């Protein structure tokens, strides 16, 4: 039997050891429902297994924070296009090839991960999508099935909400002409293709241009619009937590990769790699996907996804990567956007100033 003072001393020593020896892992992520899911599926289990705390900071996804010298977080959660740009600028550490763990059945990671998931500086863990969602009560007797229906205001009348950016909108507009997904970026590279796409966007009678991600579910639930583009996780959240009567149109969803990366000035790169290996294991990815409907980047994890822990909803049907949902998915040409984005933005804004502004909810019309 150990005496009481010694026990207190021992406890104190342990506490001192965990704080002094184990500096917490500092993770940069997006906050909100997404961070809650990560906390439950990744951060807490990691602390449990390694005894190391995880300290989460939030950011807006931009690279400015990374460019500063004090960017000494250990791990960053970022989109693949941003990670590719940061990697080119030398802001990230290259990842070793053997970083991701093999699947439980021994399948090597290279074959288990989806194509393009294992990058030089970033490892994709989940895939989210920009999709169109619609109010179920808006079109009695029929429902939209193709992205062209977004632009068909005769069969599906009512105002729309679209993100105030050329990306995704241009693709959808050109697709509505019957263009094949493989041909999208070749055709959008011509003045004729851009004109056709903007013509189609301009044909919409009433468009709200949203900027913040939570605007579009709100516009839908408040019946401001009947169809809106947005992130599939946000729409899911609106259905689960607010009981919104909306449904996702998966055709022409634009998928993006969400990755883990290690910044150049990370203080604990070894621990960061250990965390990434842990967080991208099949089991953890499946657990994360039970809490937020983002598709796991591993095939073995996709098979293990089960139900939402609170609502018992089968989460597989809500993944962008589910075979039923991704039959019409667009693969975003990130190289193309990397070199055209600023010009496209200018072009789009100039067009908006002339035509789309009249119905924009965000700002008054500049005189043309």
């Amino acid at each position, binding site marked *: 039997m150990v005496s009481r003072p010694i026990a207190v001393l021992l406890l104190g020593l342990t506490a001192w050891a965990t704080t002094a020896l184990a500096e917490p892992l500092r993770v940069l992520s997006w906050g909100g429902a997404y961070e809650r899911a990560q906390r439950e599926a990744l951060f807490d289990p990691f602390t449990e297994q390694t005894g190391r705390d995880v300290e989460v900071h939030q950011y807006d996804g931009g690279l400015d924070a990374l460019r500063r010298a004090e960017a000494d977080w250990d791990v960053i959660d970022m989109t693949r296009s941003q990670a590719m740009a940061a990697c080119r600028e030398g802001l990230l550490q290259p990842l070793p090839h053997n970083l991701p763990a093999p699947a439980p059945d021994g399948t090597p990671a290279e074959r288990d991960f989806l194509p393009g998931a294992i990058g030089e500086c970033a490892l994709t863990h989940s895939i989210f999508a920009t999709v169109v969602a619609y109010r179920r009560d808006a079109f009695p007797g029929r429902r939209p099935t193709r992205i062209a229906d977004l632009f068909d205001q005769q069969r599906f009348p009512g105002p729309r909400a679209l993100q105030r950016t050329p990306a995704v909108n241009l693709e959808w507009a050109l697709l509505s002409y019957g263009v094949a997904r493989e*041909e999208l970026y*070749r055709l959008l*590279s*011509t003045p*004729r293709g851009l004109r056709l796409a903007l013509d189609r966007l301009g044909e919409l009678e009433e468009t709200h241009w949203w900027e913040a991600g939570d605007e579009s579910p709100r516009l839908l639930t408040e019946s401001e619009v009947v169809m809106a583009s947005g992130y599939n996780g946000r729409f899911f959240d609106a259905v689960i937590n607010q009981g919104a009567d909306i449904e996702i149109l998966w055709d022409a969803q634009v998928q993006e990769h969400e990755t883990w990366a290690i910044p150049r000035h990370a203080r604990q790169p070894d621990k960061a790699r250990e965390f990434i290996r842990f967080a991208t294991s099949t089991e953890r990815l499946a657990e994360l996907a039970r809490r937020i409907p983002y598709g796991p980047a591993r095939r073995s994890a996709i098979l293990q996804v089960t139900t939402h822990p609170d609502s018992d909803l089968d989460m597989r049907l809500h993944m962008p990567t589910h075979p039923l949902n991704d039959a019409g998915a667009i693969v975003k040409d990130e190289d*193309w956007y990397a070199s055209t984005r600023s010009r496209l933005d200018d072009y789009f804004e100039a067009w908006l100033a002339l035509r789309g502004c009249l119905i924009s909810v965000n700002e008054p019309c500049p005189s043309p």
Partner: protein
Amino acid sequence: MTPDSSLPGRGPLPLLRFLGLVLLGAAIGGVAALAATGFVRCVLWLNELLLISPRSRMMFDHSGALVAATVAVPTLGGLIVGHLHRHIPEGRPHTPADAIAAVQTRRGRLPARAGGITAVSAMISLGAGASVGQYGPLVHLGATLGSLGARLMRLGRSEDNITIACGVAAAIATAFNAPLAGIIFAHEVVLRHYALRAFAPIAAAAIVGHVIATQALAQGALFHVADTVVPRAWEFGLFVAIGGGGALVAGAYMHAILGVGRLAARLPLRPALRPALAGAMLGTLALWVPDILGMGQETLRFATIPGAFGGGELLLVLALKIAATALCLGMGFSGGVFSPALVIGTLFGALCGTLVASISGAPQETFIFYAVCGMVAVTAPVIGAPLTSLLIVFELTGNYALTTAALASVTLASPIAAQLFGRSLFDIQLHGRGLDLSSGRGRALLMDTPVIDYLTQACVTLSPGISLDEAITTLARERHSEAYLVDEQGRYHGCVTLAELEAARQEAGGRRRTQACVDTRRPTLCRDSTLWEAMALLEEVTGEALAVVDEGVFRGVVYEVHIAHAYLHQSDALRREEHGHG
């Protein structure tokens, strides 16, 4: 005749040989498909690198440098191409027409060196944005590889023809990802007959090409068509009419190419520099109308979308694309005629569709039908392959309604164009080079065999001055019924027959000079005469032989029996090739 001899080619050995040929066909299909894949990838890569593809032009953010590149790239490409062509004996790139000629005359043996240089120069032409097609070079590359395979295996001419067709089928099957179209194209355009013996190796080659295409060349198809509505009944009448119009457009296109070729020959500019001039003109024009640059796949795609072009714009791009292609091909760029024809035809069909819509005021739901009908109506006459064009539409779209509409248009297009201009651009070109395929392969074969091959000096020649008695004695001694009068200088004076000599002796006595009874109606052949001409002469002449006379000098004779023999031999070879089983 015993039952065995009536069934030629049955037995284990011929079967093994036939299976060997099928395996060789598959192997050639694999090599040709890989070569085609490499070719297409290389062109795409060059287009990205040299700022020809719209995607690379869009991603390149320096407008001044882009303008300079637009003019400089085709010009420099033309310069390289022009200099490459100096290493080909004919001084021009080889085309599918050369492969057709080799098969139709049973020569086979396509030259590997010229084929290789042509493939490289076509790659550079296409890579540098010349307005030419990629399928012609692919077909010729496949044909050259096939012929090379037959030579490596030391096979005969007949097998050489089959392996050429195998290479062609594999190239088309790979490039379009359309194996049926590849098989039909090889039969319809290259072989021009159907034999089971050739079908199996060709089918094997096309299948291997198709498998490789789906595995290795994951590029998108030529065009994609979403679900279409079914056209109204009266529209089928319009599709037929588009066929008629398409034939005329095809004629204009073919004659523009040939016309620029003739003009270029008169230019005071070295042949090696002509493509560079064409490149400079093309690049300059492309600064205003970029649609004419390169193969024009984006233009093709837009032409199937209602409203992408205005009516006037369609007409302008159509005319400029014909002009640009004629300029590039006529001035000596290396490349095919098919891809530009696809663009031109689709623009023409779109123009018809726009016209119909503006007259009838109906919604343009069936616009794609007009575009595809125009496409088929122009391409089928140009390559002389209505069935292939239909199958390409079917295999690329999997859309039966669209294929029947294309059928309606090709019904009129191909015969009208064949009547007015010729079976295909290849046939017109070969006709210009002296090979007439309009009456089929048998005639082409005879026309390609020089009569000089059957020349012999084993005949009776007499001096024109000798008496009838002497002449008759000599003929009797030699057991011949005809003699040829040749003087000391070797000059030919005519032919005499024993019957005529006897008749003359009865009338005027034996001392008369032989020269007096020369048969003036007896025609002669010259050194360049073909077996076909000799056969034609035989229709009006009965006798022993025809004299071959070269600028008045007697060279020898060709016996009629040899001509008949040669004819039978050729027909027999053709019959065996076209109707043999294995």
